[in-house]
Each structure stands twice: as structure tokens, then as C-alpha cells.
């Protein structure tokens, strides 16, 4: 049956890239849901840019919420055993200094060379860079979680980003509601497809010419 992935399933697929011993930062918006799919019993340590290592599940309004214990997306969270707090300069030192293994970021656009655009709409004066530029520059691996197309069904994976750039050449993998991609020096590689979607159909909704992985398979969920 043909079905675009939900945001939860995109995050579930991304969570599969996390390994025991990794330090991971989840960006604002959709990426925060990746924390819901982290396998238990492993030390996958979440970094919150506002100054926490080893925060855990998000709380609901029924829980005992503490305003002083939130993640960078302003969500109240629990701590995992072995957590620590630190100031923001230190936090960004962790990011910029290359100490974080994976960051998962949202995007307006990603180019075939891995350029990321996710902080401002064209023509605007205002915008929200937040920690996104540091995360994009500093983390060892950038994974983007995004919708494959715009509301008018135009590609968001493009040859060149037309939206204001967050960082150039940083994205390693893209996970959309249609597919899983790798950015390589040879080009953008289609690795996995959402159930029922053919490579041709995915290509028709993607601007740059895709390379098809010899191990192309359907996303297992």
C-alpha cells in the first residue's frame, strides 16, 4: 500500500542511525520526536543546547513540570541518570568544537551538495537562526528530517538552495516522507523508498538527478 511517512515514522527511521555511545542533538520542531524512538538500555546521550547532557522523555501537562528543566525546544523534560548541566558558552563549545556525533535538523531546502537552508524565508528581514548554524557547522554528522515537497507539491530537495543558507555542504543524510538519501561527492543517492513509491516517482518530485543505490530497498518500519 502506498503511503507517505508520517513525521513519527521519519523520526523512527532516523533513530535507527543512533548508536550506543553517541552524543546527539535534536533540533527545533520535527527532530525533537526522534527522542521518542531511542532504544532503551543504550547510552545515547542527548545534548540540549540550552545546557543539558542526558535529558530524556518529554513531559505532559499532567506531569510535575519544572520551568527550569526544559530542552532547547522549550519542552519540559525528565533527566536520564548521569545527566549534567552547564552554561551556554560551554554548550556551544561542545557543538562548535566537534564533540557532538549527530544532529538532526529540519529544513526548508537541501541542495544536492548538502547545502542547508532552514532559518529564513526569502525576502524577509526577520528570521530564526538559533543554534542551527553552529549545529550544522560543528556536529560530525548532519541528518535532515523534512517533508519531501512544499504544500504545492514542489521539490524541497533542489540543485541550488534559493532560500537563505544556514550552512554549505554539511548535510550527510536526508529523511523525508518519501525516502532516505545520502549526500555523496558523486551526487545525491536514493537509498530507501517509502512503501509503494517507485524511484521514478520520487525522482519526479526531486529537482537534482538522483543516483540509485545498488542496494535500494523499501523503508522497513
Amino acid at each position: 500500500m502506498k503511503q507517505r511517512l508520517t513525521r513519527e515514522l521519519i523520526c523512527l527511521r532516523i533513530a535507527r542511525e543512533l548508536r550506543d555511545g553517541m552524543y546527539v542533538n535534536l533540533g527545533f520542531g520535527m527532530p525533537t520526536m526522534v527522542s521518542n524512538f531511542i532504544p532503551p538500555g543504550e547510552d545515547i546521550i542527548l545534548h540540549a543546547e540550552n545546557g543539558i547532557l542526558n535529558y530524556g522523555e518529554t513531559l505532559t501537562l499532567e506531569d510535575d513540570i519544572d520551568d527550569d528543566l526544559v530542552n532547547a525546544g522549550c519542552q519540559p523534560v525528565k533527566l536520564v541518570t548521569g545527566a549534567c548541566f552547564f552554561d551556554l558558552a560551554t554548550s556551544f563549545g561542545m557543538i562548535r568544537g566537534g564533540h557532538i556525533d549527530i544532529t538532526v535538523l529540519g529544513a526548508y531546502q537541501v541542495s544536492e551538495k548538502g547545502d542547508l537552508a532552514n532559518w529564513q524565508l526569502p525576502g524577509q528581514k526577520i528570521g530564526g537562526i538559533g543554534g542551527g548554524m553552529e549545529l550544522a557547522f560543528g556536529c560530525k554528522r548532519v541528518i535532515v528530517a523534512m517533508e519531501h515537497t512544499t504544500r504545492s507539491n514542489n521539490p524541497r530537495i533542489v540543485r541550488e538552495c534559493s532560500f537563505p543558507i544556514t550552512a554549505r555542504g554539511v548535510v550527510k543524510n536526508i529523511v523525508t516522507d518519501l525516502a532516505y538519501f545520502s549526500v555523496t561527492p558523486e551526487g545525491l543517492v536514493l537509498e530507501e523508498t517509502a512503501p509503494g513509491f517507485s524511484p521514478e516517482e520520487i525522482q519526479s518530485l526531486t529537482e537534482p538527478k538522483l543516483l540509485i543505490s545498488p542496494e535500494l530497498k523499501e523503508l522497513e518500519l
Partner: protein
Amino acid sequence: MNKIVDDVKQALADVFDGAVVLIGGFGGSGNPHNLMNALVEQGARGLTIVSNDWTQWTALLENGQVRSLISGFTNHPFRPETTKLAEELCQENKLELETVPHGILEERIRAAKVGISAFYCPVGVGTVVEQGKEKRNIDGKECLLQHSLKADFALIKGYKGDRLGNIQCRFAAGNRNITMAGAATVTIAEVEQTVEAGEIDPERVNIPGIFVDRVVKMPKLVRWLDGHEVPGYLTPKV
């Protein structure tokens, strides 16, 4: 030595028109909400507000007190009318806007605090952040020159404070308050409790008193109370 000030109005009385004001906190957590509200009331105009996000500048902008905004977020993701106001004021040249990466902003503030005039950093190369900045290749990496950010006032939030200005922070509410303390000519801290000197264990002091000029006790204002979200999070937690 007694840095404790009884009256929040007194604590902010000398904030002048055109001042550069750093405001602590991150997304509402660890924000000096009371100091910010008092600044709105105090009414100083033409301010340059240096902030992380919209939770530090919205009230001041809407009250017409901001001439220049230096912030990681110059939009409000949850209130379109605020975003629209900022955009319009900027298009009409009534508001100067600089959207900056959080980490760069933090280092610029820290540099002013610790006597570093300027530094080179690769973040922002290839983006609008590059505009107007000197670029240099250092060890094979393109880097931008960033200058220390000098400020007149820093408004910060702590948990406990004593007469020497020592501040203890709680959980993740330290965040930018720790960096900002001492990064301006005058640092003013709002705390939930003022305590006797020595009550905060020396190992538990997050902000050494040397960086703090004034300490004022104010109630903690919270966003979530008794199972619901408080609109505008201006409710004191008893």
C-alpha cells in the same frame, strides 16, 4: 559589601535611553521575567536588546522601546502578530535587526566579559552572517572576524543570591545567565531567594559575586502551573 537591592525599580533606575541591554534566559527558562517587566514599566527607549529569542524581547518591542535587536531569533514562532510587527518595523527602518547564531552571540558576550577584543570563527561562512565581516583563512579554514559585544546592562536570573553577589542557579536555568554576568557595565540579577553569605556552598556557586552588581529578590514566574500552561507565563509560583 551589600549588593542586595530591595526595590526592583531602584535596581533599574539608571537604565538610560539608548542603552545596550543583555537579557538572560533561553526560551522562557531562566528568563529574568520580573526585571524585564520592570524595564517595560521603567520605559527607557531606543534600547539595543541583546537576546537569545523572542521571550526576551517581545514585551519591550511591543511597548515601542527597542531601536535595535540583536537576537538568535528575530521572529516569534508562535505569535504571527509579533513577527509581523518586527518585520514591519524593520522594513520601515524603525528597527535595526541582526539575527545572529546563538553560539557566536554567546562568545561575543563572553569575550567582552573576559577581555578578549575579537576572535575568528568559521561559523556563518557562506551565509548572510558573512556580510560586512573580515574573512581570513586560518589553518585551511575560512573564518569570520567577530568582535566582542559591549553592553551597558545585563539582566540575569538566578535561584539564590547573597549580599556578595554570589548566585546559585537551578537545573538548566543557568544557561546564558552564567555567561552574561559581568559582560556589561552593570549586572543586575533577580533571584528567588536572598540568603546569608555562606549559605550557598562554595562548590555550588554558579556565578561568582565578582560579576554581579545588584541582586534583587523577586517571585518566580512560571509557564506551567497545576496542569495547565499559563498564557504569557506571568503567574507567580507560590
